[in-house]
C-alpha cells in the first residue's frame, strides 16, 4: 500500500481558506470532507487536527464562525471567510504560485540548458 502524504505545516490552513472561499460557509465536517475529496484521498488528515487550525484562523481574524443548523437538523458551528481572510488567501495564493513556478522551472532544467 502506498503511504499517504503528510500535510506540511501551514498548508492545511491555506486549504481551509480556499475551501471556504469556493464553497461559502461550512461546518468543520464539511471542510474536512472537501479537503479529502479534492486531494483525492492522497492526503491523509486526521480529521480532528482541523479544529485547532480553525481556532487559530479564527483568533487571527481570517475566518469567523456562528451557530447554524446542519443537514441532519442539528446545531453546528459554521465557518466563513472574513474580508481579511480573503486578503490573506490572495497573498498566500500568490506566494504559493510563485514558489511552485520556481520549483517547476528547476525541475524542467536539463544539463545541456546550463552549458
Amino acid at each position, binding site marked *: 500500500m502506498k503511504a499517504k502524504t503528510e500535510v506540511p505545516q501551514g498548508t492545511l490552513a491555506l486549504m481551509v481558506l480556499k475551501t471556504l472561499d469556493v464553497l461559502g460557509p461550512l*461546518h*468543520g*465536517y464539511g471542510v*474536512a470532507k472537501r479537503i479529502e475529496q479534492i486531494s483525492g484521498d492522497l492526503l491523509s488528515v*486526521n*480529521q*480532528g*487536527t482541523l*479544529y*485547532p487550525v480553525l*481556532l*487559530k484562523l*479564527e*483568533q*487571527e*481574524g481570517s475566518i469567523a464562525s456562528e451557530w447554524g443548523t*446542519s*443537514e*441532519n437538523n*442539528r*446545531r*453546528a*458551528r459554521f465557518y466563513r471567510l472574513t474580508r481579511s481572510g480573503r486578503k490573506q488567501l490572495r497573498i498566500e495564493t500568490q506566494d504559493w504560485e510563485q514558489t511552485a513556478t520556481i520549483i517547476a522551472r528547476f525541475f524542467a532544467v536539463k544539463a545541456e540548458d546550463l552549458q
Partner: protein
Amino acid sequence: MKTFRRFLSRVRSLGTKKPDEERLREEIEEHLALQTAENIRAGMPPAEARRRAVLKFGAVEAVKESYREQRGLPFMETLIQDARHALRRLRMAPAFTVATVLTLALGIGATTSIFTLVNAILLKALPVANPGELYRLGREAHCCYLGGYSQEKEFSIVSYDLYRYLKDNTRGFSELAAFPSQGSFGVRRSNTSDAAQSYPGEFVSGNYFRMFGIRPYAGRTFTDADDQAGAPPVAVISYRLWEQRYGADPSVIGSTFDVDQKPVTVVGVAPPGFFGDTLSNAATEIFLPLNTEPVVESDSDLKKYNIHWLNLIGRIEPGVSPTSIEAQMRVELKQWLVMHWSEMSASDRAKFPEQTLFLSPGGAGITSMRQRYEDWLLILMAVTGFVLLIVCANVANLMLIRSMERRQQTSVSMALGAPAYRVISQPLLESILLGLAGGGAGLAIAFASTSLIWRFAFPSLQGVAAVPIEASPSVPVLLFALATSIATGLCFSIAPAWMSIRVDPIEALRCSVRSMVRTGSLSRKALVILQAALSLVLLSAAGLLTTALRGLEHQDFGFEQDYRVVVSFNPRLAGYQAPQLSLLYKRIHDSIATIPGVSSVALCLYSPPKGGWGAGVWIDGGPAPGPKDDNSSSWNRVTPSYFQVVGTPIVRGRGITEQDTATAQRVAVVSQAFVRKFFGNDDPIGKYFGGKAENGHEFEIVGVAKDARYFPHVLDQLNSPVYFLPEAQADYTQMNLGSLFLHDIVILERPGANVSFASMREAIASVDPDMPITAIRTLKEQVALQFTQQRLIARLTSLFGVLSLLLASIGLYGVTAYNVGRRTNEIGVRMALGADRSQIVRLVVRSAFRLILLGLLIGLPLTVGVSRFLANQLYGTNPYNPLLILTAVGVLGFSTLAASLIPALRASLISPLKALREE
C-alpha cells in the same frame, strides 16, 4: 498585527474557558454524527459506522489538548488554577494557616516598623525641591557657637562675615543660605491677652526658602530686602503653628506678633510638611531673617567676625562639580583668615596651616539626629533581622511537616507523569501566598506599633512640637514590606519544595503508611538548632542592654534625685533686662521658699544633668596653655545653698553661700575632675584661676564639690571638669549676656510633703504673672528623660528576645510533637516490652534537649561576639557576664522543658495495644 490580534483574543478567552470547552465538545460530537450518518448511507451497520468515524477523526483527547494550547494562555491558566488550588488547601488547614500567617506577621511587622524608623531618620531627604542638588558645609553636624579663627578638623560653622565672604566670592552655587542652630522664641500675638509661648525658631538668610525651593502656603516667604540691616522685622511661621495655634486664621498674615517682646510682622506661612533644615524632635515653627537677630537678641552675634554660629547649605547650579566649589571655598577660607591675621591669637595662627573645609551632600539637611541614632537603629535592624530569621526557620519547619504529609499525593502525581516544575510550583505558590498574607498582616502590625515606638522614642516636651516625621506608610516602606514577605516566602519554602521532588514514586507508594526514608528530619532538627542559637543571642543581648541601662540609671550621679523638683522658666521671654535679674531671682527664691513643705530652693543656669556653659581655664601662676593644649572646662552659675539643694557633697572647703556678695572677693567652687585636670595632686583651696587669657586672678577657689554627672550626652562617660560661680557676683556688664538668664529652679521638699506643681506655679505667678514656665518635672523624671533612647533599645530588644524565645519554643514543640506522632509504633513496642511511662517521657525530653544543647553550642560563640560588639557601644559594660549568659541558658532550658513535656506526656499515655494495632 496578526500575532497581536491573536494574543488579544487569547487573553479574552481566559474568561470563557467553560463555554469554549463546551463548544469544542459539541463540534466534535456533530462531526462524528455526520460522519457516522455518511458511513451508514454507504452501507455499514451503525456500530461499525460509528467506530470508523471515530477512527477517522483521530485521538479526541490529543485534539482537545492541542486545541486548549491554542486557545488561552496556558501558563496564566495554570498559575491561576494552582493559586486557587493552594488557597483551597490552605482553607482546609485553618490551624496551620493561622499559625503561619501570625508568625510571619510578627516577624515582618517587627522588621517593617523598625525599617520605618530607619527610613525616616537615616534615609529620607528633606521635603524640598531636588534635594540632590543641595550641599552643606561640614562633614559632621556641629553645634552651636565656636569662637576664634580656627576649628578642629574642619571649618564647619561660620560667622556672618565669613558667610558673606563665601557667598560673594564662590561661583557654582545658585543660592547659598545660612542659618544658626535652632533656638526658641517667646511668641505672642500683639494686642491680645494670650501669654507668650515658647516655640522653636531660627534666623535664616533671605534666600533660605528660595534655596530650598519652598513656596509659601499663604502670604510670601522672605526676599533679600527683608534680610537687610534696618529692614522692618518680618517672620514666616510654620503651617503647624498657623493651623494648631491660630486655627488657620488668614488674618494672621500681615498682623503683628511679639517675638521675644519685639514687634514682628508675620508675612507668610510655610507649606505643610516643611520642618526647616534639621530633623529633630522639635520642628522649627517660626523663621526670622538673619538681620533681625540684632533687633531680637540683646547680645547679637551678627556683627562679630570671630563668633562662628551659622550652618551653610547651598544649591549648586546644574552641571557644576561640588569638588570644584569645595576647592574654591578652601582658598576663600584661607584668604578670609589672612584678612583677620592681626586679630588672631597665637594658637589660631599656629593652627592656620591645617584649616580647611569640606562640602557634603545636604539633601537630608543638618543630620545631628541621624548621627545620634544611626548605630542604635542599625543594631535594632539587626535584631529584627534575627527575629525574622527565626520566623523563617519556624515556618519552614511547619512547611516541612506539611510536605511530609503530602508525600503520598506527590508521589502519585509524579507516578502519573506530572512534570517536576508543576510539583514544585504547588508548595512554592502556597508559600508565597502565605508570605504575602503574613506581609499584609505584618504591615498592619507595623503601622500600629510604629506610632507607639515613635511616641516612646521621642517623647515630645511640653509646649514643644513632636518629631516632624510621618510614621505612616510610604512607598519605600511598602516596597520593603513586600520584598521582605516574598523573600521570606521563598526562604522558608525552598527546602520543602526541593524535598518534594526528591520523592521516589515507587518508594513512596510502597510504604504508604510509614515513611521509610528519613528525609527531612535532619533539616527540621537543624532549623530548631538554629532557632535556639539565635534566641540565645537575642536573650543575652537583651539582658546585656537591660543591665547596662540599669547601670546607667542607678549609677552614682553625684546628686540626689528624691524629693527634688525642677521648675524651668524663661525670664528672657518675659522681657527682663540684665540689671533687673538679681532682684527677680531673689523674689522668686523667697516666694517659693515660703510654700509649706519646701525645705530649700536654689536657682541655677543648668540643673543636672542638663550640662554647662563652656570656657577656657587659665590657672594663676601656672604655665600658659600651649596652642594645642586642652584647657576647657564647663561652668554653671548658681545661687547659695545650691549644693545642699541638689545633694552634691562638698569634699573640701565650702560651698557657695550668702556671704559671696557682689562686693566680696570673687570665688568659685570646683569639681573633683577640675582639680584632677588642672591641679593634679596639689591642694586647690586658696588658688586663683580665670576664664580669660589675660586674667588668671579672676576667681579664688573656696571649695571642692564631689564629681557629678552633668552632661546629658555623656552620662555613660567619665566626669568632666566643672566650676560653679555665685549668681550674686555675676558681671552684668559682660558680653555673654545669655549666661545671666538662669533657667532652672531646683526645689527640695521635706520628705512626705508632696508639694503640688500648682502651688509652685502660683508662687512664681505672684512674682510675675507673665513669667513663662517651660516645664515642671521631678529631678527623677529629668534624669530618666536622658535615657529614653537607651530604654527604648533595651525594651525593644527584650521584647524581640521574648518573641524569639516564644517562636523557638513553638518550633520545638512542633518538631517534638510530630516526632512523637511518627514514633507511636516504636513507643508502643517499647512499652509492650516493659518500658514504663517515666522512661518514655525521658526518651522524648532527652531528644528535645539534645537539639537545644547543640543550639547552645553554636549560639555561645555568636553571643560572645555580639556582646563584645554591644559592649563597645555601652561604656562600662562587661561583655562577658557569665551570670547573664547563664540566665539566658536557663530560660532557654526551661522553655525547652515546657515545650517538650506536653508531647512527652502525651507519648507516655499511649496504650501499647492501641499503638500496635494502628499499624
